[in-house]
């Protein structure tokens, strides 16, 4: 065991995107010795990919905006399946979290009064997204990164060591959470990519902030890191996942050339006036306004176009419906033979804005299409189609503290579940990261003040043996081949439109893939060996894929990021239920769990007529209210 490094911390944060960095900042501000573990280099996490902005009801663009309106929009976007307490905390605290970034040096775009500018986005009633052109995620992560550096400078001044209170472990991957004899979390086990050496982080509190699961799908906007690590680590440690059937397919990913298929085209294109057209040149979204949104969206092009200038007297263009609606509509148009040459639809901003305006407002889109597809978006339309983007499901947590069901385990950001219900609104993830990153950091710090960690040797030995297995096996399969098949399976059978037989096939195929994952082998040294890394990540991807497929088979309705061809309607009975995944003897088990009824003052924020669209008779407030 001499080759294992052992390090002691109060709080260990796994993941260095927005949620992880914000959690770590908070734990350090609470005086806790904090580690940040990043699978990539510091500052490179998937958060940089977020383009549109952070939703926060600051009311800078429209003074009618407030937390109640934001809360309502979030619940509607999630089709009322959201954890209402999370949606409430999120709507209330998002403005403070954005302003705080500004005090740390962030430079958002401005209004004429010099305040933070806010832009329109799908499902948000008012312009609400604080943004920097179309690179808001980069601004958020850079600001948090630089805040951490500034805290390290303070520590260096006071204690002579930059790493005294908050230390970043770049290119380090955690493969197991460690538990003590009482079943509490006591640390995490992982390897350092550069050397392949193992490391044990001993800590009473661990915050999961590992992001999503997109790399289980073939067409995805997600980066290589998104292998469901935190979801799987939580399951393996005995925690529960909720809402795993809800996977968001972003309506607009690039469809051509093949090597960039899936890369995100920001929703801001539509927020700034871009429209979707089919091969007949028709703005087809008018045909796809669902009943629950009928009174909120324009029915003619004229009204839709007036809305950009006069939102108070016109209804919104249907291109700005929540993402699940737009993704399904594009899917239907392509299936009906009205798609673009490369199997998408047309997204047109060129005929809607002047070239200078496009370059100014959407610089990275302009750059991305020019460099990767030879398309000048100021002169011609883009071709776009749905791409796997975000998982609404995740670790079941206490809304206020981010605590999971296992003592000492916390989760925030995409890896946690509940906040977004069945569908996340654009812009709500950057604010989610900040609000719940801070809360989980706070929760972990408070917990770590009362508990100490002792790591049993047997836990370390088991984790090390597991991590070395791919080297022990000889002549096994190539991990890349297994990964490709997993991605194809999920794309074909658990994609945007689902059916019972296909889901059953998927579950069977995943069972076989799990066997194959257990038999992949690698050769060579352990220093920076991508084949070995993938072999270990595959365990997580298969496990999480099983959760998605099983939950998708169980839920016999269509809602948000879960569309069943065989059960196309939304059901109020199903709304009352969360599906909870746990691991029992290595098998994913599914349980139905009742949702907690919404607090009276929150339910009072909605009109009765609207509630009737979502809730059962018995759940409705009495008429006199």
């Amino acid at each position: 065991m001499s080759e294992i490094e052992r390090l002691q911390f109060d709080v260990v944060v796994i993941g260095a995107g927005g949620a992880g960095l914000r959690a770590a900042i908070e734990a350090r501000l609470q005086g806790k010795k904090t580690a940040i573990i990043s699978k990539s280099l510091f500052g490179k996490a998937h958060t940089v990919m977020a383009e549109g902005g952070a939703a926060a009801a600051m009311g800078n663009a429209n003074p009618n905006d407030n937390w109640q309106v934001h809360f309502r929009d979030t619940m509607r976007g999630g089709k009322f399946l959201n954890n209402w307490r999370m949606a409430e905390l999120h709507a209330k605290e998002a403005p403070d979290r954005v302003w705080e970034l500004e005090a740390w040096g962030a430079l958002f775009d401005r209004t004429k009064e010099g305040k933070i500018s806010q832009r329109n986005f799908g499902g948000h009633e008012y312009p609400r997204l604080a943004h920097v052109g179309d690179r808001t995620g980069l601004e958020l992560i850079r600001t948090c990164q630089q805040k951490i550096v500034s805290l390290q400078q303070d520590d260096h001044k006071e204690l002579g060591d930059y790493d005294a209170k908050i230390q970043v472990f770049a290119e380090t991957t955690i493969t197991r959470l460690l538990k003590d004899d009482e079943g509490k979390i006591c640390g995490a086990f992982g390897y350092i990519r550069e050397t392949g050496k193992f490391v044990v982080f001993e800590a009473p509190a661990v915050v999961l902030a590992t992001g999503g699961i997109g790399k289980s799908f073939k067409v995805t906007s997600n980066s290589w890191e998104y292998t469901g690590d935190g979801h799987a680590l939580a399951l393996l440690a005995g925690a529960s996942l909720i809402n795993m059937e809800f996977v968001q397919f972003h309506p607009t990913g690039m469809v051509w050339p093949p090597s960039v298929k899936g890369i995100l085209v920001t929703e801001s294109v539509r927020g700034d006036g871009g429209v979707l057209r089919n091969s007949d040149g028709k703005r087809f979204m008018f045909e796809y306004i669902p009943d629950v949104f009928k009174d909120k969206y324009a029915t003619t092009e004229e009204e839709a176009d007036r809305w950009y200038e006069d939102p108070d007297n016109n209804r919104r263009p249907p291109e700005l419906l929540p993402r699940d609606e737009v993704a399904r509509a594009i899917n239907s148009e392509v299936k009906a033979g009205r798609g673009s040459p490369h199997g998408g639809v047309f997204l047109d901003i060129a005929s809607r804005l002047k070239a200078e305006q496009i370059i100014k407002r959407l610089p990275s889109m302009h750059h991305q299409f020019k460099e990767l597809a030879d398309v000048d978006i100021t002169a011609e339309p883009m071709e776009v189609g749905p791409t796997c983007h975000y998982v609404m499901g995740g670790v079941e947590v206490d809304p206020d503290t981010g605590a999971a069901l296992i003592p000492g385990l916390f989760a925030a950001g995409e890896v946690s579940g509940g906040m977004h219900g069945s569908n996340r609104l654009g812009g709500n993830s950057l604010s989610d990261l900040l609000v719940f990153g801070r809360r989980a950091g706070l929760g972990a710090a408070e917990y770590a003040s009362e508990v100490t960690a002792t790591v049993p040797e047997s836990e370390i030995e088991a984790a090390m043996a597991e991590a070395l297995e791919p080297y022990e096996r000889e002549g096994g399969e190539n991990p890349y081949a297994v990964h490709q098949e997993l991605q194809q399976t999920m794309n074909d059978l658990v994609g945007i439109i689902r059916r019972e037989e296909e889901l059953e096939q998927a579950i069977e195929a995943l069972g076989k893939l799990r066997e194959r994952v257990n038999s992949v082998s690698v050769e060579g040294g352990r220093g920076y060996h991508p084949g070995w890394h993938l072999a270990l990540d595959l365990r997580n991807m298969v496990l999480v894929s099983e959760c998605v497929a099983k939950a998708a088979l169980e839920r016999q309705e269509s809602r948000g990021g879960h569309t069943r061809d065989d059960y196309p309607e939304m059901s109020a009975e199903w709304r009352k239920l969360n599906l909870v995944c746990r691991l029992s003897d290595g098998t994913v088990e599914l349980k139905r769990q009742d949702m907690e009824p919404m607090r009276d003052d929150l339910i009072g924020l909605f009109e009765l007529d609207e509630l009737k669209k979502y809730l059962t008779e018995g759940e409705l407030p009495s008429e006199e209210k």
Partner: protein
Amino acid sequence: MGYKAKFRVWRGDAGKGELKDYTVEVNEGEVVLDVIHRLQATEAPDLAVRWNCKAGKCGSCSAEVNGRPRLMCMTRMSTFEENETVTVTPMRTFPVIRDLVTDVSYNYQKAREVPSFDGGDVKPGEFRMQQVDVERSQEFRKCIECFLCNNTCHVIRDHEENKEHFAGPRFLMRVAELEMHPADVADRRQIAQEEFGLGFCNITKCCTEVCPEHIKITDNALIPMKERVVGRRYDPLVWLGSKIGIVKRDKTKETPKA
């Protein structure tokens, strides 16, 4: 549509290495990183490469392609002739870890040395800045930290001995970003010259040329920083400007922070 391309890829670790030849399939629309991934998935599963977003947004896959510092994910195969050998080597300025992956910790050390943003006494939510004033620093905040500029800068590219006292274009630009930040109250001019080696820069613009974000590092960050450092006392033009009332801001009178 597809064709077989000749690739030469640097394989090795900190100790030693060599260029290895591969023949590999290339399909329409692919970039160099796609081809490197195909090598990994077929004949070289242990080929080390650092990458992340594959969309030019994270700045992880920096390398030298036919000798030019570039992001592999933004280098399209269609820019090469089909019979051309494509040579991929790691960034030269930083020590090799393995294959195409280099140790870029120099950059993170320099980042720690730049005095952080100081917003003074303004409370969160009370900042008021005009768009025109934030745009100068916003340009520099587009930086994705690919470190290609630092890799290219001749001050350190072949001069290990300069690394200690030179922060490279990336972090001199960070200083400029903070200096031009409308809400920042600190003064970093002295430290830029004395600690970060601004004087080493002789504005050859190599950094600007390789920047994948097309940031005008030299023109908009480094040269204005040099001007600020020189200060009005030694500059007859600024002196004249102040006499006829063109130059209004006078940062030289602010006390440098300890």
